């Protein structure tokens, strides 16, 4: 399989100087790619560029060989789902949040059918994060962008979400995961992209 994403000399300016500058990387379509780096290295910003929550000030980003700006942005975001660090629940039940296909999706993220009718804001953080993954999957994406998906979780639910994310990558989804934990990255990822402030591409280590 080819590259899902290619970042070419990408730069993003912040209020006080560049957040990302001259960053290039390739993200293959298969498996799990971890983006690691200390806080302040621009990892989150990079991830936001991939589903166009933000646009770079310099450089270019390709999705399947085509500039991300050439896609209809709503279709791009459907294909490239982004799940943030803190789970965001919408008003209504878990089933309302996940939408169509929740019957199949809840088991996939290891949430029991008994939770379907629970108000989403009454879930534990770990359950809510898994519900957010199910909601992202309900859009039938090709790619998942995960921004520190376990940093708000306790140890038990962290392990569960890690296994879940790994299994999604094994099922053929392109998974791009931002993390500040090198341990998590080396254990879970097929490859690692290291970023540093000011941002430069680091060596790509095999899993």
């Amino acid at each position, binding site marked *: 399989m080819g590259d899902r994403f290619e970042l070419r000399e990408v730069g993003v300016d912040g209020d006080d100087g560049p957040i990302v500058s001259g960053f290039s990387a390739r993200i293959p379509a298969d498996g799990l790619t971890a983006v690691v780096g200390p806080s*302040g290295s621009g990892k989150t910003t990079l991830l936001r560029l991939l589903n166009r929550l*933000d*646009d770079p000030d310099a450089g270019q980003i390709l999705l399947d060989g085509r500039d991300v700006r050439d896609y209809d*942005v709503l279709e791009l975001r459907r294909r490239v789902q982004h799940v943030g660090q803190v789970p*965001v629940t919408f008003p209504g039940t878990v089933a309302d949040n996940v939408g169509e296909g929740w019957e199949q999706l809840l088991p996939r993220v290891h949430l029991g059918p008994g939770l379907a009718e629970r108000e989403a804001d009454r879930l534990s953080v770990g359950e809510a994060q898994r519900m957010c993954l199910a909601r*992202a999957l309900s859009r039938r994406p090709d790619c998942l962008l995960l921004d520190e998906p376990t940093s708000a979780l306790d140890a038990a639910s962290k392990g569960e979400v890690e296994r879940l994310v790994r299994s999604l990558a094994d099922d053929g989804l392109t998974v791009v995961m931002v993390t500040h934990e090198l341990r998590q990255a080396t254990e879970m990822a097929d490859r690692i992209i290291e970023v540093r402030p000011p941002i430069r591409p680091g060596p790509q280590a095999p899993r």
Partner: protein
Amino acid sequence: MSDLSGQITFGHVALALCLVVVAVVVSKAQKADLETDIVVATVRSFVQLLAVGFVLEFVLSDHGAFTPAVIAVMVATATVTSANRARRVPRARWICAAALAVATTGTLGLLLVLRIIPAVPRAVIPLGSMIIANAMNTTSLVMTRLRDDLAGHRGEVEARLSLGQTATEAAAPWHRSALRTGMLPVIDNTKVVGLVALPGAMTGMLLAGASPADAIRLQLVVMYMLLAGNAFAALVAGHLTVGRLFTADHQLIRSLRRTLT
């Protein structure tokens, strides 16, 4: 002397300054440090109302053709005021101008087309000014509330965008609550009208010698008119503000996104 029409002279106004002195003394005694503000406010009110009085004398005495100009100046002043309050919204001045223009022409238009009020300066100018003053508050309230809510709930807004919602869909919950914030005060006032305080238009009619029955009929028209004016203003301001807080590509504008790394 059954009414106050023609009874208040500048002598009476000068005597009423003793009421200002009361405020100054209270401020001084309590060290509230408001004496300068009180004096400035007193002088400004005197000069502004004197000027408005001259303009109204002129327009009402056979120069009705200037009525649209008077209304336009009021809309322009209100635009500057509300845009200043909502200055953190990009292009606030244009949004305010549009909201106030629609509120004023829409509401006055309905009143005139339905022949609820006669097309004379004596009716159009005071009622227009009430519409504009109320719409001015609603406009800046809706704009600042919407902007602050979207900035404060950025995570939720972007989670919605990430799921493929349009900017309009993603902003909808906060758009709705901003409209409510803008419209609730006038709705509440309409509910309690007469129970808490006698409203301005009715008070004016009574002081000028009208019968209470006449006064309440005018007041009812005024309340309904303000409901419509605020609804127009909230609608236009909310819609245009959402448009300015997102890019054409359904992204929150940068000033609403705290830079994260």
